[in-house]
């Protein structure tokens, strides 16, 4: 294969992030400087984001057998880069008080973003695995970045051990699929599946093992046990990154795999994915009811949300890709702003995060804007109309109803009803009168920090998308057509 200019343009975002990581590494080697390192990362990620406009002129294009850069990939690349930028902004404010080497964080973040970009463009098992590992391995280091605190170290190790187990499942599944189909490309695999015959049970087992690995990364029941601990222990900007980038990349890839290899036509797999979705909605929301730690609460609520989204995989119809895009955009905006507020309240780092719910008591009387942002986010997560979360949930319900998946529709409704309790509980906490206990606050100049501006912008975006979602719907539908 010859690498032409249009191939290089298609790879531009990947190349720019790659160069950013190396420049940041050499910058650290030359002289350590927190602000410069953070700025370099921000510039690099922004440049990659801008380069997506150039990529749009050459899509769809296949770069080597491994990567397929189409509009679908570009949409999710943009989401990943925005989430990466938001995490960088939060990390800058957060790490100011960190009493160890701060700069390597941005290197790990860049590598992880690179993995996510590779994943959403991958059309081949090899690039899938490569992207997934490049996404996950830096995340172990990021989760354990404040490694002198017990919780952070614990979350890093837990995530590493369980992720390694999931990778083993993924590899074994791929090996079985390769043994049966003789190809690692998604398209060939799909052709082999529809053809059927022979050793269909081995194919099924291979797909099943891959689903286990993906379900682990998406923290779906029964592979969810790590979620709450990792969310709680990891520093808040890392949790924001983990809850967005890793979920977007894995889900976008899962949809691409299932669209090119229509495995959900197989009855048994269809049933299993539906059961996983229903259980995730129930278990995630029920477990979140009793949490007093806002990061754990968000962890369990993310299990529920991914359960809602999995309805789309079960349906696998024309509406599915549109719903995935819309739901992921709204979920990412909301999650980023929620963890943004948590990170800002915990910034600068002082030994651990401010995550216990009682420290948010009366936040409104001290930091009205921050509390307002949190309120909008809780409403959006609960799916109240006028917020982006409602649009996402509406599309999930529409997909479920159209595919006549009544059990899952019932699950979404029951889950939403349950979730109202804990989301509103957080909101009530924000407006109660503060107690006399010691208070933990965002440092008073938080509004001047880039992080503060960012969460306000995200909150505005959530409101605007909730009231006027048409541009977002147009964007996503144009992305899935190309």
């Amino acid at each position, binding site marked *: 294969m010859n690498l032409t200019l249009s191939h290089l343009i298609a790879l531009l975002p990947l190349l720019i992030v790659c160069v950013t990581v190396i420049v940041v590494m050499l910058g650290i080697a030359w002289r350590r400087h927190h602000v410069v390192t953070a700025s370099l990362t921000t510039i690099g990620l922004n440049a990659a984001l801008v380069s997506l406009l150039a990529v749009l002129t050459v899509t769809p294009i296949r770069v080597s057998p491994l990567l397929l850069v189409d509009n679908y990939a570009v949409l999710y690349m943009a989401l990943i880069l925005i989430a990466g930028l938001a995490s960088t902004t939060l990390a800058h404010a957060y790490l100011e008080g960190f*009493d160890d080497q701060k700069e390597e964080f941005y290197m790990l973040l860049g590598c992880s973003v690179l993995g996510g970009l590779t994943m959403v463009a991958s059309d081949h098992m090899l690039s899938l695995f490569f992207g997934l590992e490049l996404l996950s391995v830096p995340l172990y280091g990021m989760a354990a970045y404040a490694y002198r605190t017990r919780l952070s170290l614990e979350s890093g190790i837990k995530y590493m051990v369980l992720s390694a187990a999931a990778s083993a499942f993924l590899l074994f599944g791929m090996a079985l699929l390769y043994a049966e189909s003789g190809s690692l490309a998604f398209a060939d695999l799909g052709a082999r599946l529809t053809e059927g015959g022979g050793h269909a*049970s081995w194919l099924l087992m291979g797909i099943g093992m891959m689903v286990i690995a993906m379900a682990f990364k998406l923290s779906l029941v029964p592979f969810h046990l790590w979620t709450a601990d990792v969310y709680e222990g990891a520093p808040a900007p890392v949790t924001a990154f983990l809850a967005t980038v890793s979920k977007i990349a894995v889900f976008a890839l899962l949809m691409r795999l299932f669209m090119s290899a229509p495995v959900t036509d197989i009855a048994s797999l269809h049933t299993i994915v539906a059961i996983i979705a229903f259980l995730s909605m129930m278990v995630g929301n029920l477990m979140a009811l009793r949490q007093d730690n806002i990061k754990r609460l968000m962890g369990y609520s993310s299990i529920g949300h991914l359960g809602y989204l999995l309805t789309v995989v079960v349906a696998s119809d024309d509406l599915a890709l549109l719903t995935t895009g819309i739901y992921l955009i709204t979920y990412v905006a909301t999650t980023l702003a929620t963890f943004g507020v948590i990170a800002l309240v915990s910034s600068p780092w002082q030994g651990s995060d401010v995550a216990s719910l009682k420290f948010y008591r009366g936040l409104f009387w001290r930091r009205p804007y921050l509390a307002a942002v949190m309120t909008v986010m809780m409403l959006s997560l609960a799916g109240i109309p006028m917020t982006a979360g409602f649009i996402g949930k509406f599309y999930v319900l529409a997909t479920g109803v159209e595919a006549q998946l009544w059990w899952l529709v019932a699950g979404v409704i029951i889950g939403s009803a349950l979730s109202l309790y804990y989301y509103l509980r957080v909101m009530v906490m924000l407006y109660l009168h503060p107690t006399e206990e010691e208070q933990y606050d965002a440092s008073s100049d938080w509004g001047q920090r880039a992080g503060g501006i960012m969460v306000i912008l995200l909150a505005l975006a959530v409101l605007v998308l909730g009231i006027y979602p048409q541009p977002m719907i147009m964007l996503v539908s144009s992305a899935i057509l190309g």
Partner: protein
Amino acid sequence: MDLAAQLAQNWSVGVFIVAVLALCTFMVTASALLGGRAWGHNKETPYESGIVPAGSAHQRFSVKFYMVAMLFVIFDVEALYLFGWAISIRETGWTGLIGATIFIFILLAGLIYDSRVGALDWVPKRRVQPDRVHQPAQRDQADN
């Protein structure tokens, strides 16, 4: 494909799994039932009729050994990738050469980074460090 056909196709795997489990169970139970068991003070030592071990098995090695081992493995594996390029150097032409050059320069950048952060120094310069083992902050204790 119905169940009977699947069974016909995969029965040997099932038999193998059952046979493995059966063999393990047989070996453990049979030796427990038939074999004698001697008890004694010296039975508990690591080498029953050998040299009495001295000291603890939990020796502490300097973390530097692991660091060097890791760096060696990383650069060794990366050098192995170059063999793939070396055998096809004529076929890949200029594109291959440029690719390999970029790869080698990235490795060089990594090496510079390693040496600058002191990963290659056997005896690191003593840095002025605060007491950085964090006690749980007050707010954590308040939770309990």
